[in-house]
């Protein structure tokens, strides 16, 4: 793991994310290929990811495809709590992907919700890789994943920063 690959806070990181998203959007007039890496997930996230290919969601109509080869991938989709045993695999996969590349963290595990940092796991993916889009959920439903993917490629804008999670808010939570 190099210093440059560690997640950094502050305005520089925001500029970097904005630039990455811009580069990715410029490129996504074409199709997008996704490589998934499981860093110790319970496989329920994988089960939901697989459902994206079912006729009901039909991911391919959006020009999004899964690929087994990181060299063909534009997007790295990571599940699991970033266990340390997967460090080498994760870094090799990330390094093998051509620029521009975006990283999407899927589920509560890589967002730091389930496993704390310890000798086995980093506990959160942004300690290891620069994460561009976070998709919460345990597991995120295919619809939530689809929204995350479309946010990542700039076809939808994110909604969660406008939500207050307060019942009486004008955000219109139907409680």
């Amino acid at each position, binding site marked *: 793991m190099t210093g440059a690959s560690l997640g950094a806070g502050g305005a520089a990181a925001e500029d970097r994310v904005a630039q990455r998203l811009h580069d990715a959007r410029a490129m996504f007039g074409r199709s997008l290929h996704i490589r998934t890496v499981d860093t110790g997930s319970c496989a329920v996230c994988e089960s939901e990811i697989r459902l994206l290919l079912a006729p009901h969601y039909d991911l391919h109509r959006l020009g999004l495809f899964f690929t087994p080869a990181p060299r063909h991938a534009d997007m790295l989709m990571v599940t699991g709590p970033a266990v340390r045993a997967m460090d080498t695999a994760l870094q090799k996969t990330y390094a093998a992907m051509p620029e521009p590349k975006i990283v999407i963290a899927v589920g509560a595990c890589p967002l*730091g919700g389930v496993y704390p940092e310890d000798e086995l796991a980093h506990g959160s993916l942004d300690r290891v890789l620069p994460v561009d*889009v976070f998709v919460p959920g345990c597991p995120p439903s295919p*619809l939530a994943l689809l929204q995350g993917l479309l946010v990542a490629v700039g076809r939808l804008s994110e909604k969660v920063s406008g939500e207050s*999670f307060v019942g009486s808010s004008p955000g219109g939570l139907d*409680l």
Partner: protein
Amino acid sequence: MALWLFRGLRKGVVTTRYPAVTDPWARGLPTPPAFDERLLSRALADRLVEICPSRALAREDDCLVLDVGACTACGRCISQSAGAARPSRLFELAATGREQLLKRIAIGSGEIVA
């Protein structure tokens, strides 16, 4: 191909870029809680922080901080809060920054004042 075109003209476009209408079953998905701040008290907030298995809740003075990213929507806070927490029914939660998922909820008096 011609059949597809004919069916498309007859019935309209059947696929959209993103679900234009949310699937009805999506209403039943487990979702993170939304809080009624009037019903939250410090004692209740502390109890919810204690029972949260994924460390998604924390209390900072008069705020309950909900980390939507860490929440697994297990529903423990909803079952233990006597109405102060209910399912938010929000599942389109993708964020471009981790801090977008941290929600601060002001703690009220613990009861609804008429």
